[in-house]
């Protein structure tokens, strides 16, 4: 199988402990990806909020100009 990496210093671990460690690392890897996506969406949401506020300000400015 191509996805075989050489195991370094893990062979002596008890099977139960190794599975538990694997679970932790797999969860960590997936959580990292999830956290990145959430962080990215949060940044985008903040940006959208700022853009919405700016549009409001410009609309107000344009309204004042129109009303003289």
């Amino acid at each position: 199988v191509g996805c075989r990496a050489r195991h370094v210093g893990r062979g002596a671990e008890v099977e139960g402990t190794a599975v538990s460690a694997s679970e932790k690392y797999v969860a960590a890897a997936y959580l990292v990806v999830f956290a990145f996506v959430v962080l990215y969406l949060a940044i985008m949401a903040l940006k959208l909020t700022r853009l919405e506020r700016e549009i409001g300000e410009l609309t107000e400015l344009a309204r004042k100009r129109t009303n003289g």
Partner: protein
Amino acid sequence: VPVLAGLSGLLLSAAIALIFFYAPVDADQGLSQKIFYFHVPIALTAYACFGWGAWKALLVLWKRKPGADMESYVAIHQGVIFGALTLLTGSIWAKISWGVWWTWSERQLVLFLVLFLFYSAYFMLRFSVEAGPQRENLSAVYALFGVVLIPVSFLAIRLAENFIHPTIFTSRGPQMATSQFATFCVALAAMILLAGALYRVELLGKRLDAQLRELRELLA
């Protein structure tokens, strides 16, 4: 954007379900091999983003296409995000498989880091120059230079003589079970769609920002 985002969400959910409930646990690596289904698609998506950024950079220099500079910038930004994720997920996988977070003796790893740092420096160059044609030209040339590193990074593992980083896609096809390959394909499609959705959202935000700036100047 909503269609892309919806599709990517759907495919990501399907990929996670396939990874944990359909794909078999690898006989050699055990559960840690499950990282492969996200790590490799993320890396391939990073390459695709850098490639897309370089293509848009070429359009800037060749056709002077309006908006291509912004598209190139956003694509490279996405590439750097996916590149960072590749390094992070790869490090976690390396820790459990090889016992170390990082190894400098692996050409594949070092070349990917070089590619990542090269494109990270793109932002320093871009924001050190005033907005205008000069910035567009410099950024485009830099983005095009970086694209040379993609095939080098991708082929590095195949050129390496003594490696511990696994090779899955060889000249004899994918070295994994059909169920594993199907799961990988779904995860790859999900990642590419996710990158596409994020790219569109970021591009939309940047264009809106530019239009608002122009409007503010007109109203001032």
